[in-house]
Protein backbone atom coordinates (compact mmCIF):
# COMPACT_ATOMS: atom_id res chain seq x y z
CA UNK A 1 0.00 0.00 0.00
CA UNK A 2 1.43 3.36 -0.98
CA UNK A 3 1.92 6.23 1.49
CA UNK A 4 -1.66 6.59 2.73
CA UNK A 5 -3.04 9.70 4.41
CA UNK A 6 -1.83 12.54 2.19
CA UNK A 7 -2.40 10.68 -1.05
CA UNK A 8 -6.06 10.12 -0.23
CA UNK A 9 -7.07 13.79 -0.15
CA UNK A 10 -8.19 14.84 -3.59
CA UNK A 11 -7.44 18.54 -3.86
CA UNK A 12 -10.22 21.01 -4.68
CA UNK A 13 -9.16 23.59 -7.25
CA UNK A 14 -10.86 26.38 -9.17
CA UNK A 15 -12.70 24.09 -11.65
CA UNK A 16 -14.14 22.05 -8.77
CA UNK A 17 -15.27 25.21 -6.99
CA UNK A 18 -16.97 26.52 -10.10
CA UNK A 19 -18.77 23.21 -10.55
CA UNK A 20 -19.96 23.37 -6.93
CA UNK A 21 -21.22 26.89 -7.55
CA UNK A 22 -23.40 25.35 -10.24
CA UNK A 23 -25.37 23.72 -7.43
CA UNK A 24 -26.20 27.13 -6.00
CA UNK A 25 -27.17 28.40 -9.44
CA UNK A 26 -29.68 25.56 -9.51
CA UNK A 27 -31.14 26.81 -6.20
CA UNK A 28 -31.26 30.29 -7.72
CA UNK A 29 -33.24 29.01 -10.71
CA UNK A 30 -35.71 27.32 -8.36
CA UNK A 31 -36.02 30.55 -6.41
CA UNK A 32 -36.80 32.52 -9.56
CA UNK A 33 -39.29 29.99 -10.91
CA UNK A 34 -41.18 29.81 -7.61
CA UNK A 35 -40.83 33.55 -6.84
CA UNK A 36 -39.16 32.82 -3.53
CA UNK A 37 -37.25 36.11 -3.89
CA UNK A 38 -34.17 34.51 -2.40
CA UNK A 39 -31.84 35.13 -5.37
CA UNK A 40 -30.23 38.22 -3.88
CA UNK A 41 -29.69 36.71 -0.44
CA UNK A 42 -28.43 33.53 -2.03
CA UNK A 43 -25.91 35.38 -4.16
CA UNK A 44 -24.64 37.47 -1.26
CA UNK A 45 -24.45 34.43 1.01
CA UNK A 46 -22.49 32.49 -1.62
CA UNK A 47 -20.05 35.35 -2.10
CA UNK A 48 -19.65 35.64 1.68
CA UNK A 49 -18.94 31.93 1.93
CA UNK A 50 -16.19 32.26 -0.67
CA UNK A 51 -14.68 35.37 0.86
CA UNK A 52 -14.94 34.48 4.55
CA UNK A 53 -13.65 30.95 4.15
CA UNK A 54 -10.82 32.04 1.86
CA UNK A 55 -9.85 34.63 4.43
CA UNK A 56 -10.11 32.05 7.20
CA UNK A 57 -7.89 29.69 5.25
CA UNK A 58 -5.28 32.39 4.69
CA UNK A 59 -5.33 33.49 8.33
CA UNK A 60 -5.09 29.93 9.60
CA UNK A 61 -2.23 29.18 7.23
CA UNK A 62 -0.46 32.30 8.49
CA UNK A 63 -1.09 31.45 12.17
CA UNK A 64 0.20 27.92 11.64
CA UNK A 65 3.33 29.26 9.88
CA UNK A 66 4.12 31.93 12.47
CA UNK A 67 3.43 29.47 15.28
CA UNK A 68 3.63 31.71 18.38
CA UNK A 69 1.40 31.56 21.48
CA UNK A 70 0.52 35.28 21.29
CA UNK A 71 -0.97 35.00 17.87
CA UNK A 72 -3.02 31.96 18.92
CA UNK A 73 -4.33 33.83 21.97
CA UNK A 74 -5.13 36.86 19.82
CA UNK A 75 -7.16 34.69 17.46
CA UNK A 76 -9.09 33.27 20.43
CA UNK A 77 -9.83 36.75 21.77
CA UNK A 78 -11.12 37.90 18.36
CA UNK A 79 -13.33 34.78 18.17
CA UNK A 80 -14.78 35.46 21.63
CA UNK A 81 -15.49 39.10 20.77
CA UNK A 82 -17.16 38.19 17.46
CA UNK A 83 -19.32 35.53 19.12
CA UNK A 84 -20.39 37.91 21.90
CA UNK A 85 -21.33 40.47 19.26
CA UNK A 86 -23.49 37.88 17.47
CA UNK A 87 -25.21 36.95 20.74
CA UNK A 88 -26.02 40.60 21.44
CA UNK A 89 -27.47 40.92 17.91
CA UNK A 90 -29.61 37.83 18.33
CA UNK A 91 -31.14 38.98 21.63
CA UNK A 92 -32.60 42.43 20.92
CA UNK A 93 -34.94 42.10 23.92
CA UNK A 94 -32.09 41.69 26.37
CA UNK A 95 -31.18 44.36 28.91
CA UNK A 96 -28.11 46.54 28.66
CA UNK A 97 -24.93 44.67 29.53
CA UNK A 98 -25.67 41.68 27.33
CA UNK A 99 -22.49 42.25 25.31
CA UNK A 100 -20.20 42.42 28.34
CA UNK A 101 -21.81 39.43 30.02
CA UNK A 102 -21.59 37.42 26.80
CA UNK A 103 -17.87 38.19 26.53
CA UNK A 104 -17.37 36.97 30.10
CA UNK A 105 -19.48 33.85 29.56
CA UNK A 106 -17.86 33.00 26.22
CA UNK A 107 -14.34 33.57 27.51
CA UNK A 108 -14.98 31.52 30.62
CA UNK A 109 -16.51 28.52 28.85
CA UNK A 110 -14.29 28.82 25.74
CA UNK A 111 -10.91 29.05 27.41
CA UNK A 112 -11.67 26.54 30.17
CA UNK A 113 -13.00 23.84 27.87
CA UNK A 114 -10.56 24.42 24.99
CA UNK A 115 -7.49 24.17 27.19
CA UNK A 116 -8.96 21.31 29.23
CA UNK A 117 -9.22 19.38 25.96
CA UNK A 118 -5.87 20.35 24.42
CA UNK A 119 -3.92 20.29 27.68
CA UNK A 120 -5.41 17.41 29.66
CA UNK A 121 -7.11 15.13 27.15
CA UNK A 122 -5.22 15.42 23.87
CA UNK A 123 -2.06 16.78 25.58
CA UNK A 124 -0.69 18.74 22.66
CA UNK A 125 2.96 19.87 22.74
CA UNK A 126 3.53 22.84 22.88
CA UNK A 127 0.33 23.86 24.70
CA UNK A 128 -0.66 26.50 22.11
CA UNK A 129 -0.18 24.30 19.04
CA UNK A 130 -2.45 26.17 16.59
CA UNK A 131 -3.34 23.12 14.48
CA UNK A 132 -5.21 21.74 17.51
CA UNK A 133 -6.09 24.76 19.63
CA UNK A 134 -7.79 26.88 16.97
CA UNK A 135 -10.17 24.30 15.44
CA UNK A 136 -11.10 23.03 18.90
CA UNK A 137 -11.70 26.56 20.18
CA UNK A 138 -13.78 27.22 17.07
CA UNK A 139 -16.08 24.28 17.77
CA UNK A 140 -16.27 25.09 21.48
CA UNK A 141 -17.06 28.77 20.93
CA UNK A 142 -19.48 28.21 18.06
CA UNK A 143 -21.63 25.77 20.01
CA UNK A 144 -21.43 27.64 23.25
CA UNK A 145 -22.51 30.79 21.38
CA UNK A 146 -25.61 29.04 20.04
CA UNK A 147 -26.47 27.72 23.50
CA UNK A 148 -26.02 31.10 25.15
CA UNK A 149 -28.11 32.89 22.52
CA UNK A 150 -30.92 30.31 22.84
CA UNK A 151 -30.92 30.52 26.64
CA UNK A 152 -30.96 34.30 26.67
CA UNK A 153 -33.68 34.59 24.03
CA UNK A 154 -35.81 32.20 26.05
CA UNK A 155 -34.96 33.86 29.38
CA UNK A 156 -36.05 37.37 28.45
CA UNK A 157 -39.06 36.26 26.41
CA UNK A 158 -40.29 34.11 29.32
CA UNK A 159 -39.61 36.78 31.91
CA UNK A 160 -41.88 39.14 29.98
CA UNK A 161 -44.46 36.43 29.47
CA UNK A 162 -44.48 35.46 33.13
CA UNK A 163 -43.97 38.96 34.58
CA UNK A 164 -47.17 38.78 36.64
CA UNK A 165 -46.08 35.51 38.22
CA UNK A 166 -42.68 36.99 39.05
CA UNK A 167 -44.27 40.07 40.61
CA UNK A 168 -46.77 37.98 42.60
CA UNK A 169 -43.86 36.01 44.02
CA UNK A 170 -41.96 39.20 44.89
CA UNK A 171 -45.12 40.47 46.59
CA UNK A 172 -44.87 37.54 48.99
CA UNK A 173 -41.29 38.50 49.86
CA UNK A 174 -39.32 36.54 47.25
CA UNK A 175 -35.82 37.57 46.23
CA UNK A 176 -35.25 38.05 42.47
CA UNK A 177 -33.65 34.60 42.33
CA UNK A 178 -36.61 33.00 44.11
CA UNK A 179 -39.10 34.82 41.90
CA UNK A 180 -37.34 34.10 38.59
CA UNK A 181 -35.86 30.68 39.42
CA UNK A 182 -38.39 28.69 37.39
CA UNK A 183 -37.92 30.92 34.37
CA UNK A 184 -34.13 30.73 34.65
CA UNK A 185 -34.23 26.95 34.83
CA UNK A 186 -36.45 26.58 31.79
CA UNK A 187 -34.20 28.97 29.84
CA UNK A 188 -31.14 26.87 30.68
CA UNK A 189 -32.95 23.71 29.64
CA UNK A 190 -33.83 25.37 26.31
CA UNK A 191 -30.16 26.24 25.76
CA UNK A 192 -28.84 22.78 26.59
CA UNK A 193 -31.44 20.60 24.84
CA UNK A 194 -30.05 20.90 21.28
CA UNK A 195 -26.60 19.73 22.40
CA UNK A 196 -28.02 16.85 24.41
CA UNK A 197 -30.23 15.87 21.47
CA UNK A 198 -27.23 16.02 19.14
CA UNK A 199 -25.31 13.71 21.47
CA UNK A 200 -28.19 11.26 21.59
CA UNK A 201 -28.63 11.26 17.80
CA UNK A 202 -24.91 11.25 16.91
CA UNK A 203 -23.96 8.51 14.49
CA UNK A 204 -27.53 7.35 13.95
CA UNK A 205 -29.28 10.26 12.35
CA UNK A 206 -26.15 11.98 11.06
CA UNK A 207 -22.39 11.65 10.81
CA UNK A 208 -20.99 14.49 12.90
CA UNK A 209 -19.15 17.18 10.93
CA UNK A 210 -15.75 16.70 12.41
CA UNK A 211 -15.79 12.94 11.92
CA UNK A 212 -16.90 13.38 8.31
CA UNK A 213 -14.04 15.81 7.81
CA UNK A 214 -11.45 13.52 9.28
CA UNK A 215 -12.66 10.54 7.30
CA UNK A 216 -12.55 12.62 4.10
CA UNK A 217 -9.01 13.62 5.04
CA UNK A 218 -8.03 9.97 5.19
CA UNK A 219 -8.09 9.33 8.93
CA UNK A 220 -9.05 5.86 10.02
CA UNK A 221 -12.78 5.91 11.03
CA UNK A 222 -11.99 4.43 14.44
CA UNK A 223 -9.44 7.13 15.19
CA UNK A 224 -11.91 9.75 13.99
CA UNK A 225 -14.50 8.26 16.36
CA UNK A 226 -12.32 8.96 19.38
CA UNK A 227 -11.90 12.60 18.41
CA UNK A 228 -15.57 13.00 17.64
CA UNK A 229 -16.57 11.66 21.07
CA UNK A 230 -14.20 14.07 22.79
CA UNK A 231 -15.57 16.91 20.66
CA UNK A 232 -19.22 16.14 21.43
CA UNK A 233 -18.58 15.91 25.16
CA UNK A 234 -16.55 19.09 25.22
CA UNK A 235 -19.20 20.91 23.21
CA UNK A 236 -21.89 19.99 25.73
CA UNK A 237 -19.67 21.09 28.61
CA UNK A 238 -18.93 24.40 26.91
CA UNK A 239 -22.60 25.01 26.10
CA UNK A 240 -23.61 24.30 29.69
CA UNK A 241 -20.87 26.44 31.23
CA UNK A 242 -21.46 29.34 28.86
CA UNK A 243 -25.26 29.30 29.17
CA UNK A 244 -25.20 29.09 32.96
CA UNK A 245 -22.68 31.93 33.21
CA UNK A 246 -24.55 34.21 30.78
CA UNK A 247 -27.99 33.57 32.32
CA UNK A 248 -26.70 34.05 35.87
CA UNK A 249 -24.94 37.28 34.92
CA UNK A 250 -27.98 38.69 33.15
CA UNK A 251 -31.27 37.63 34.75
CA UNK A 252 -30.74 39.99 37.71
CA UNK A 253 -30.50 42.98 35.33
CA UNK A 254 -34.27 42.89 34.85
CA UNK A 255 -34.60 43.79 38.55
CA UNK A 256 -33.67 47.02 40.31
CA UNK A 257 -31.19 47.06 43.19
CA UNK A 258 -34.22 46.85 45.51
CA UNK A 259 -35.30 43.65 43.77
CA UNK A 260 -38.24 45.21 41.87
CA UNK A 261 -39.00 43.54 38.56
CA UNK A 262 -38.87 46.13 35.78
CA UNK A 263 -41.54 45.13 33.30
CA UNK A 264 -41.92 46.28 29.72
CA UNK A 265 -43.62 49.65 30.23
CA UNK A 266 -41.07 50.78 32.82
CA UNK A 267 -37.86 50.20 30.89
CA UNK A 268 -35.62 53.03 29.81
CA UNK A 269 -33.23 50.94 27.72
CA UNK A 270 -35.63 49.71 25.04
Amino acid at each position, binding site marked *: MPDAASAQVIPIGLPQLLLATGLVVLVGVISIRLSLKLERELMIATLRTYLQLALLGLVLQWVLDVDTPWLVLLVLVVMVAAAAQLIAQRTPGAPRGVLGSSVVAMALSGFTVTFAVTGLIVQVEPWYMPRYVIPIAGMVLGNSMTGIALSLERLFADMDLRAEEII*ASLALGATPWEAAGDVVRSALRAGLMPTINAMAAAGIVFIPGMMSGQILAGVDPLAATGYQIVVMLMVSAATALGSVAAVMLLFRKRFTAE*GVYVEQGYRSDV
Partner: protein
Amino acid sequence: MLDGVSLTVARGELVDVMGASGSGKSTLLRALARLLPGCEGALFLDGTPAERIAPTLWRSRVSLVSQKTVIRSGSVSDNLLHAWKLKVRAAQAPPSDSELRLALDSVGLHEVALQQEAARLSVGQAARIALLRSSLTCPDVLLLDEPDANLDAESAELVSQVIARFLTEGGAVLRVCHFGSHLTPARRLRLQQGALTEVTP
Protein backbone atom coordinates in the same frame (compact mmCIF):
# COMPACT_ATOMS: atom_id res chain seq x y z
CA MET B 1 -48.80 59.27 37.39
CA LEU B 2 -48.94 59.88 41.16
CA ASP B 3 -47.63 63.09 42.64
CA GLY B 4 -47.56 64.36 46.21
CA VAL B 5 -49.72 61.50 47.47
CA SER B 6 -49.64 60.99 51.22
CA LEU B 7 -51.61 58.65 53.44
CA THR B 8 -51.53 56.81 56.75
CA VAL B 9 -53.34 53.61 57.61
CA ALA B 10 -53.59 52.65 61.29
CA ARG B 11 -53.64 49.14 62.72
CA GLY B 12 -57.12 47.71 62.68
CA GLU B 13 -58.21 50.27 60.11
CA LEU B 14 -59.72 49.65 56.68
CA VAL B 15 -59.16 52.42 54.17
CA ASP B 16 -60.74 52.35 50.72
CA VAL B 17 -59.21 53.99 47.67
CA MET B 18 -61.62 54.92 44.91
CA GLY B 19 -61.11 56.57 41.57
CA ALA B 20 -61.75 56.18 37.88
CA SER B 21 -59.98 53.36 36.09
CA GLY B 22 -56.54 54.49 35.04
CA SER B 23 -56.33 56.98 37.90
CA GLY B 24 -53.41 55.07 39.41
CA LYS B 25 -55.01 53.06 42.22
CA SER B 26 -53.12 49.87 41.37
CA THR B 27 -49.93 51.87 40.84
CA LEU B 28 -50.35 53.34 44.33
CA LEU B 29 -50.67 49.88 45.87
CA ARG B 30 -47.57 48.67 44.01
CA ALA B 31 -45.61 51.68 45.22
CA LEU B 32 -46.65 50.94 48.81
CA ALA B 33 -45.51 47.33 48.41
CA ARG B 34 -42.18 48.66 47.14
CA LEU B 35 -42.82 46.90 43.86
CA LEU B 36 -42.89 49.90 41.55
CA PRO B 37 -39.69 50.60 39.64
CA GLY B 38 -38.43 54.16 39.65
CA CYS B 39 -40.64 55.87 42.20
CA GLU B 40 -39.60 58.28 44.92
CA GLY B 41 -40.97 59.06 48.33
CA ALA B 42 -40.90 58.06 51.99
CA LEU B 43 -42.57 54.97 53.41
CA PHE B 44 -42.85 53.96 57.04
CA LEU B 45 -43.96 50.76 58.73
CA ASP B 46 -44.69 51.16 62.45
CA GLY B 47 -42.55 54.31 62.36
CA THR B 48 -39.53 52.60 60.79
CA PRO B 49 -38.47 54.15 57.48
CA ALA B 50 -38.45 51.79 54.50
CA GLU B 51 -34.71 52.24 53.96
CA ARG B 52 -34.11 50.44 57.23
CA ILE B 53 -36.22 47.42 56.26
CA ALA B 54 -34.93 45.00 53.62
CA PRO B 55 -37.22 45.04 50.54
CA THR B 56 -38.07 41.34 50.82
CA LEU B 57 -38.94 41.74 54.51
CA TRP B 58 -41.04 44.82 53.72
CA ARG B 59 -42.99 42.91 51.05
CA SER B 60 -43.57 40.05 53.45
CA ARG B 61 -45.03 42.54 55.99
CA VAL B 62 -46.91 44.73 53.48
CA SER B 63 -48.57 42.13 51.31
CA LEU B 64 -50.01 43.05 47.93
CA VAL B 65 -52.81 41.00 46.40
CA SER B 66 -53.09 42.26 42.84
CA GLN B 67 -56.33 42.40 40.94
CA LYS B 68 -55.16 39.99 38.30
CA THR B 69 -54.98 36.67 40.10
CA VAL B 70 -51.78 34.74 39.50
CA ILE B 71 -52.00 31.03 40.25
CA ARG B 72 -48.79 29.02 40.24
CA SER B 73 -48.59 25.58 38.66
CA GLY B 74 -49.02 22.80 41.20
CA SER B 75 -51.69 22.04 43.77
CA VAL B 76 -53.84 24.40 45.83
CA SER B 77 -51.66 23.52 48.79
CA ASP B 78 -48.47 24.39 46.80
CA ASN B 79 -49.99 27.79 46.11
CA LEU B 80 -50.97 28.47 49.71
CA LEU B 81 -47.58 27.34 51.03
CA HIS B 82 -45.45 29.12 48.44
CA ALA B 83 -44.71 32.01 50.82
CA TRP B 84 -43.03 29.63 53.29
CA LYS B 85 -40.66 28.34 50.62
CA LEU B 86 -39.02 31.77 50.57
CA LYS B 87 -35.88 32.68 52.46
CA VAL B 88 -37.62 35.60 54.16
CA ARG B 89 -39.76 33.10 56.14
CA ALA B 90 -37.06 30.47 56.64
CA ALA B 91 -37.51 30.65 60.43
CA GLN B 92 -41.30 30.31 60.35
CA ALA B 93 -43.23 27.05 60.38
CA PRO B 94 -45.79 26.75 57.56
CA PRO B 95 -49.44 26.19 58.49
CA SER B 96 -50.57 22.59 58.82
CA ASP B 97 -52.97 20.92 56.39
CA SER B 98 -55.81 21.28 58.89
CA GLU B 99 -55.14 24.99 59.22
CA LEU B 100 -55.18 25.31 55.43
CA ARG B 101 -58.44 23.35 55.31
CA LEU B 102 -60.00 25.73 57.85
CA ALA B 103 -58.79 28.72 55.83
CA LEU B 104 -60.34 27.33 52.63
CA ASP B 105 -63.65 26.64 54.43
CA SER B 106 -63.64 30.18 55.85
CA VAL B 107 -63.92 31.64 52.35
CA GLY B 108 -66.51 29.12 51.20
CA LEU B 109 -64.12 26.87 49.30
CA HIS B 110 -65.47 23.66 50.90
CA GLU B 111 -65.47 21.89 47.55
CA VAL B 112 -61.79 22.67 46.83
CA ALA B 113 -59.32 19.96 47.84
CA LEU B 114 -55.82 20.85 49.02
CA GLN B 115 -54.18 18.43 46.59
CA GLN B 116 -56.32 19.55 43.66
CA GLU B 117 -54.59 21.00 40.58
CA ALA B 118 -54.72 24.79 41.09
CA ALA B 119 -54.86 25.50 37.36
CA ARG B 120 -58.40 24.09 37.24
CA LEU B 121 -59.86 26.53 39.76
CA SER B 122 -62.54 28.93 38.59
CA VAL B 123 -61.74 32.65 38.48
CA GLY B 124 -63.70 33.27 41.70
CA GLN B 125 -62.02 30.37 43.51
CA ALA B 126 -58.56 31.47 42.36
CA ALA B 127 -59.16 35.02 43.59
CA ARG B 128 -59.93 33.70 47.07
CA ILE B 129 -56.87 31.42 47.04
CA ALA B 130 -54.73 34.45 46.15
CA LEU B 131 -56.17 36.40 49.08
CA LEU B 132 -55.57 33.49 51.47
CA ARG B 133 -52.01 33.09 50.14
CA SER B 134 -51.29 36.56 51.53
CA SER B 135 -53.53 36.70 54.61
CA LEU B 136 -52.29 33.33 55.93
CA THR B 137 -48.79 34.81 56.25
CA CYS B 138 -50.18 37.30 58.82
CA PRO B 139 -48.63 40.46 57.36
CA ASP B 140 -49.00 43.85 59.06
CA VAL B 141 -50.69 45.42 56.06
CA LEU B 142 -52.79 43.93 53.30
CA LEU B 143 -52.99 45.87 50.04
CA LEU B 144 -56.03 44.54 48.25
CA ASP B 145 -56.73 45.47 44.65
CA GLU B 146 -60.46 44.99 44.12
CA PRO B 147 -60.81 41.81 46.15
CA ASP B 148 -64.49 41.50 45.16
CA ALA B 149 -63.98 41.94 41.43
CA ASN B 150 -64.46 38.31 40.44
CA LEU B 151 -66.79 37.18 43.20
CA ASP B 152 -70.51 36.61 43.52
CA ALA B 153 -72.32 38.30 46.41
CA GLU B 154 -72.06 35.29 48.70
CA SER B 155 -68.29 34.81 48.20
CA ALA B 156 -67.72 38.55 48.54
CA GLU B 157 -69.46 38.41 51.91
CA LEU B 158 -67.13 35.57 53.04
CA VAL B 159 -64.07 37.46 51.81
CA SER B 160 -65.25 40.49 53.79
CA GLN B 161 -65.34 38.30 56.89
CA VAL B 162 -61.72 37.28 56.30
CA ILE B 163 -60.74 40.94 55.98
CA ALA B 164 -62.75 41.84 59.10
CA ARG B 165 -60.96 39.13 61.10
CA PHE B 166 -57.60 40.37 59.83
CA LEU B 167 -58.53 43.87 61.05
CA THR B 168 -59.57 42.73 64.53
CA GLU B 169 -56.24 40.89 64.80
CA GLY B 170 -54.52 44.27 64.40
CA GLY B 171 -53.83 44.30 60.67
CA ALA B 172 -54.21 47.36 58.48
CA VAL B 173 -55.94 47.13 55.10
CA LEU B 174 -55.78 49.45 52.13
CA ARG B 175 -58.37 48.37 49.62
CA VAL B 176 -59.03 49.50 46.07
CA CYS B 177 -62.75 49.35 45.68
CA HIS B 178 -65.05 50.49 42.90
CA PHE B 179 -68.44 49.84 44.39
CA GLY B 180 -69.87 49.50 47.84
CA SER B 181 -68.74 46.49 49.80
CA HIS B 182 -70.13 44.43 52.66
CA LEU B 183 -67.43 45.85 54.82
CA THR B 184 -67.68 49.57 55.52
CA PRO B 185 -64.28 51.25 55.58
CA ALA B 186 -63.14 53.62 58.32
CA ARG B 187 -62.24 56.15 55.66
CA ARG B 188 -62.63 56.61 51.93
CA LEU B 189 -60.03 58.26 49.73
CA ARG B 190 -60.44 59.35 46.15
CA LEU B 191 -57.58 59.29 43.69
CA GLN B 192 -57.98 61.89 40.98
CA GLN B 193 -55.38 63.36 38.64
CA GLY B 194 -52.55 61.95 40.71
CA ALA B 195 -53.78 63.43 43.99
CA LEU B 196 -55.46 61.77 46.95
CA THR B 197 -58.37 63.44 48.74
CA GLU B 198 -60.52 62.32 51.66
CA VAL B 199 -64.16 61.63 50.77
CA THR B 200 -66.53 63.02 53.38
CA PRO B 201 -69.45 60.73 54.00
